[in-house]
Each structure stands twice: as C-alpha cells, then as structure tokens.
C-alpha cells in the first residue's frame, strides 16, 4: 500500500503544486476586492436583493437567499470561491480516479500493477490515502492564503480558527465526491465509456439543482440529500460556527462509500 501511495503522490505532485498556487492567487485576488466591497455593503446588498432568489442561492451554494448578507466575510468567500472550490477539487479528484483506475485498466498498466504483490484493496487504499493527502495539502494552502489575506486586508474580519474550520471543513464534502467516484471505478466496467461524463454531469447538475431547490419551497425536503447542505463557510464564519454533526454526517457517508468500494473492487473483472 505504501508503494502505491508513494506512486500516486509522486504522480499528483505537479497537480498539487499548481492547484495550490492557482487557488491561492485566485483567493488573494478576490480578497483584494473585499475592502472596496466592505465600504458600501448596504448599497450592494440593495442590488443583490433585486436578483431572483434562485440566482442568489445558485451562486451562494447553500440555504435560501432570504435575509442573506452576501457581503459578510463568510458569505462573501462562500459565494466567491468556496463552493466553486468544492466543484473544482471534486472535478480534479474525479479526473485522477479515472486516470488511475479506468484508464489504467484500458491501457493495460493496471495489469502490470496488479501482477505485483499488491492486492486490489491495497491499491484502493493507497490511492485513497493519496487523495486524502492531496486534499489536505491543497486545503492547507487555501487556509494559509486566507490567513495571509485577512492580515493584509483587515476589513476581512475572520479569526484563524474560523478560517481553519472553513478551509478544512471542505475536506468532508470533497471526500464524499471522492468516495462516490472510487465506488464507481470499483464497480463499473472500464469499457463503459460514458461513466466519466455521467459523473461530471452529476457533479455540476447536483450543484445547480441544489442551488435552485433553495428557491423552490416544494424542493426543500430534498436538500439534505446533497453535500452542499452540510458545508457553508458563511455559517461557519458569520453564523453558528463549525457544525460537528454536519462534518460527521459527511464523514460517515464518505467512509461508507469507500467501504463499499473496498468490498466491491475485489469482485471486479479488471480491464473488461
């Protein structure tokens, strides 16, 4: 398992570096606007209030738009990049999982790997562990950048523990996406070429659906079935703080998905 972990980490080192740099630059760029925004939040809020609820919830990514202060520090980062980063990290992990499993099965490199004294489950665990490390490194870069940003632009008022909770809190929703994709690659034959497209569609589609469901009261009951309902940087920084229950719910779901993948991969016909 350690050998697989080392290999997976070696393969993703450039992605980790460039993604961390790219995300950090983007975060600093967005935070640099915050002082200007903080100067006149009332006027900006008036403009935002005139937008349809569905539009606001879509960009905000969680909860209803009613009485929402989009320009508080937490809600600002939630709407400007935190939700987007969940999608981005989810998409990167989906790509990595497809490359490491489905494409490896198709091009035969999986045959080489599994002919070595490495069990399928060890391979899955090694890859899963590298995903965890990958995510923690990128989230650390995000956290450090936000701390630096809050030091530079003092109008962006958030404590270090709040920023840590907002950054690392993203770990669990992304791990649910990772668990889902690991389960799929452990179950679906590599010859099914539509799988990747379906997963990306599901990732983006579920986010859009969740966003719109906030503006449609009849759909409110389905919102707990989406990961976005369990993570909100705005609530963590400006509202009720970090919800351990939400994190636990996502952790259990992610662990269950990984557990299923761990069980099923041993039954799979490889490269078929």
């Amino acid at each position: 398992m350690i050998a697989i972990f080392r290999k997976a980490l070696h393969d993703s080192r450039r992605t980790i570096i460039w993604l961390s740099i790219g995300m950090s630059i983007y975060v600093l760029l967005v935070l640099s606007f915050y002082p200007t925004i903080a100067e006149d939040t009332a006027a900006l809020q008036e403009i935002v209030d005139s937008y349809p609820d569905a539009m606001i919830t879509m960009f905000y990514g969680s909860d209803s738009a009613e009485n929402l202060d989009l320009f508080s520090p937490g809600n600002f980062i939630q709407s400007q990049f935190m939700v987007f980063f969940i999608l981005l990290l989810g998409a990167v992990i989906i790509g990595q999982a497809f490359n490491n499993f489905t494409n490896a099965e198709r091009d035969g490199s999986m045959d080489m790997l599994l002919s070595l004294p490495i069990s399928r489950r060890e391979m899955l665990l090694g890859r899963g562990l590298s995903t965890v490390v990958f995510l923690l490194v990128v989230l650390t870069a995000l956290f450090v950048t936000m701390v630096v940003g809050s030091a530079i632009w003092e109008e962006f008022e958030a404590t270090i523990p709040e920023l840590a909770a907002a950054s690392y809190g993203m770990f669990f929703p992304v791990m649910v996406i990772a668990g889902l994709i690991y389960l799929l690659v452990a179950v679906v034959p590599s010859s099914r070429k539509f799988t990747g497209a379906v997963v990306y569609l599901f990732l983006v589609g579920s986010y859009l659906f969740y966003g719109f469901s906030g503006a449609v009261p009849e759909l409110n009951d389905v919102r707990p079935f989406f990961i976005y309902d369990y993570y909100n940087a705005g609530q963590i920084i400006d509202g009720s703080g970090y919800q351990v229950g939400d994190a636990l719910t996502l952790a259990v779901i992610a662990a269950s998905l990984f557990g299923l993948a761990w069980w099923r991969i041993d039954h799979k016909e490889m490269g078929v």
Partner: protein
Amino acid sequence: MQPRPDPNAAEVIDIQNLTHRYGKVVAVEDVSFSVKRGEIFGFLGPNGAGKTTTIRTILDLIRPTQGQVLVFGLDSRRGAQEIHRRIGYLPSELRLWDNWTGAQYIRWLETVHQRPILPEAEHISERLQFELGRSLSGMSTGMKRKMGLIAAISHQPELLILDEPSIGLDPLMQQVFNELMREARAAGRTVFLSSHNLAEVEQICDRVAIIREGKLEAVEAVHNLTRVTFRWITLTLPEPAHADGFRDLEGIEAIETAGEQLRLRVSGRTNIDALIKQAAQHTVQDISIEHPTLEEIFLAYYGQKEH
C-alpha cells in the same frame, strides 16, 4: 477448500477446465493443462485465440467463469498476493509510467518486493543494451519492452509469465532474451510464455500448448511438434523450373513449380545437405524459406496423428 500449497509441487501452473466468457462471447472454453517446475512452456496460438485471457486468469485480473487455476498449488484468486510475490509478468501491451526513469521504476519495484533488485536490473539492462537512467517517455516499443522484461525478471521470480515477449525485439536482442530464458531454466525457474510464432517458441521451449478459438488443441513436447512441421523452400532459377532430381530426396513432401520458381515442402526428416547439393546443380538466383502458419502446423499435426 483451498488446496494445501506445496512449494515444491512439480506443477507450477495447473489449469483445470478453465472457461471464461465475456458476456456471451466465449474467450476460453474448457482448457486444461499444467506447467511443470523448471520448464520453459510455450503457449501458442493465433491472435485472439485466448492466450491473453488465460494469462489474465492466471494473474487473477479476471476470474474463471468455470474451472480452476492453481499456481504453486494456490487458487489464483484466494492466493493471488502470495502468487504475485513469486512471479514476474510482462504483458503483451506494455504501458509504463512515462514520467519515470527506468531506475526510478526499479527502485519503486524494490519497495514493492521489499528487497534490492537494482544490481540485478543493472546487469540485465547491460545485456539488453538498455540505459536505466533514461526517461521512459518517448521510448520505442522495443525499448519499452526491454524495460518491461528487466522489471519482470530482476527480482528473480520462481515463475515468469511473458505474454508475447519478443514483440519489438530485434534479432540480436531476441538471442539475448533466449539466453536469459535458458539461464532462468538452468536456475530452476519456470517460464510460461505466449506467442503466435512457432519459430520463436521452438528455439527455447520444452513443451508447448496450442490454443485456437479458445480451445486447447494440443499440449506437446516441442520436438514432437517440430517433427511434424515443415518449411517451404522456394528456389528461383534462371530457366523454367523442373522438379526432376528433387522428387527423390527424402522428406520432400510436396513440390510446386511456377515459371522459374520451384517450391519445395521440406519436412523435419529432409536431408538438407542433399537438398543443397541438388540445388547447386542449378544456377540459383534466389532462395527463400517460409515457416508454416499455425494453421498449417495444426493440419500437419493432426494429419500425422490420424495416420
């Protein structure tokens, strides 16, 4: 029940009634054979015959629809990890990790096998004229296969499973490969290699299994198989060819003439020296030797058996 593994079992691979279906397509049907410890065993068949499916079943990449595969006396599925510890494998379609050098790959394999293999890898790569320090990206098929071969044999496994190992190897390297396989056999290791080329197999193999359309046609000692095989020798002469003088040579099974060309079907019993002397009585402008196709071998083999 899992058979008790016998590390000294005479049969390193034991395949019993193996059937594998991909949906409705039967890739391998009711195949049974065994490979003995210390032999070089050829698995011969045309493309699509079921060779790779059988090998992938031995490696537990796919599971038998029916039947059983035992390696070192262990079930290929339940004992997969222990089996993989003791084998080396070269796939027919080799894809290496392009972002690594050969040496990096070998060092990574050292962590997998949990023992040093770099010295042996360096020794083999010297013989194969391969630079381990080179990046694996942009390498030709032949070079990549050399790397695959080095990776498969450097940890000195008890069993080597090589799927079409000679693809991309030039004749000189083919000779080195043959030497490596003979050395492995001399050291008591077992080699199981697949090929669609009898000429390649007959040079090094002790026994051969022939598979066609998913069914095992024969398992024979190579000398038995080559005894019934033949060559086509074509002589191009400056004048219209005549069969006179060749007909009486021992082991000439058939003669065809077409214009200036004389085509002789020569069996393993043919006195080649007499044939060359007879040909020397003519002005030979060209000579070519063709190996029989697998189809022709099957026909010759079964023709012989029926008689």
